[in-house]
């Protein structure tokens, strides 16, 4: 038994040694909310997404793991819904397939699950032209959403060990609890109104810098 175990570990180490892995970071997600704080649907939001990429045994296949942290507020777009502050964390995993176009530019695609947990603190307002406005508050905590993400993109080899990743992604999911409609769900992005506030769908762009650690 012991021998089998030891041989398995050494074998695993052998294959791991030959496989490359990267750590990456996406911080540009929050840039539009700071630059276009007047017109974009979220404002002054911090979105930080670290990634881990690992080559799988099968050639051209990768495991893609991502985490995320988002905090900020949505843009006022309805009078009665002046602000929604949000804070959330999420994790995603994906199985990735790549096609080599040239040695410098690589196209890839993948899909996998996303799990997000978020909290909200918002205001709502009723206009009272005769007696004055009323402003109320609402709060949601531990809001969980599950979903799937599909994406494709390009890898650009910058220099030794540095990789630039441009990803176009679509993510859809479902909130397990939806007491109020929220304009932005961390990990899922802009959420359409309707569908009982439970359905989340968003498309977006991500630019990441990766560093080869092995």
């Amino acid at each position, binding site marked *: 038994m012991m021998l089998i175990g030891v041989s398995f570990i050494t074998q695993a180490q052998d294959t791991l040694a030959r496989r490359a892995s990267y750590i990456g970071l996406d911080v540009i997600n929050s840039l539009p909310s700071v630059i276009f704080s007047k017109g974009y649907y979220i404002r002054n939001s911090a979105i930080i997404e670290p990634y881990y990429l690992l080559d799988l045994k099968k050639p051209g296949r990768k495991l893609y793991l991502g985490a995320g942290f988002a905090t900020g507020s949505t843009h006022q777009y309805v009078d009665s*819904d002046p602000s929604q502050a949000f804070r959330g964390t999420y994790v995603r995993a994906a199985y990735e397939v790549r096609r080599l176009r040239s040695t410098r530019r690589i196209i890839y695609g993948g899909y996998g699950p996303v799990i997000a947990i978020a909290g909200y603190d918002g205001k709502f307002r*009723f206009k009272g*032209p005769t*007696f*004055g406005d009323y402003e109320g508050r609402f709060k949601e905590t531990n809001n969980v959403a599950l979903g799937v993400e599909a994406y494709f993109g390009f890898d650009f080899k910058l220099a030794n060990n540095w990789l630039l990743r441009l990803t176009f992604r679509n993510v859809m999911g479902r909130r397990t609890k939806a007491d109020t409609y929220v304009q932005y769900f961390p990990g899922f992005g802009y959420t359409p109104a309707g569908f009982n506030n439970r359905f989340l769908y968003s498309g977006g762009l991500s630019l990441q810098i990766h560093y080869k650690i092995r």
Partner: protein
Amino acid sequence: MKNLLPVILMLTGMIVQSCADCGPQAELSATIRFRGDSLKLDSVYALHAVSQEAITRQLKDALNGSNYQISLPLSLTSDTTTYVFRFTGQTDTLSIYYQRLFRYKGGCGFINDALEPTSGSHYYSTFSKTNIHYGTYVLPGEQPWLGHDPGAGIVINVEL
């Protein structure tokens, strides 16, 4: 005909489509019905109001005969709204008590309603006869997609 079936199904689906009633989602108004006003209403003044415009606008519209009704805004910031009515040779006061409700409703967003107070008096009035009825401003359940009547809200009948 076979090809028309899905189209017919879709159209029927759209017609029988129902939706939730959201109510006014704004400052609510109580309907005041005047019976046997032989004195003619001159002016109405709302206490603690920031603007009297919504009230004066209604008075400009002709108040014909001795039976008429006006719609008076209710405060969103207080559970009491008081109005002073000035007639030729007579002044009356009416305070309406209610319980404000703000909540989230699916398909609507945040909604507001005014309910009957759980305890205490329902009104203070110097009119000779006053009768108040609390109806909801937000209808419960599913409503037909087109042309359903809005919730009646608070209706007050007064006699001078």
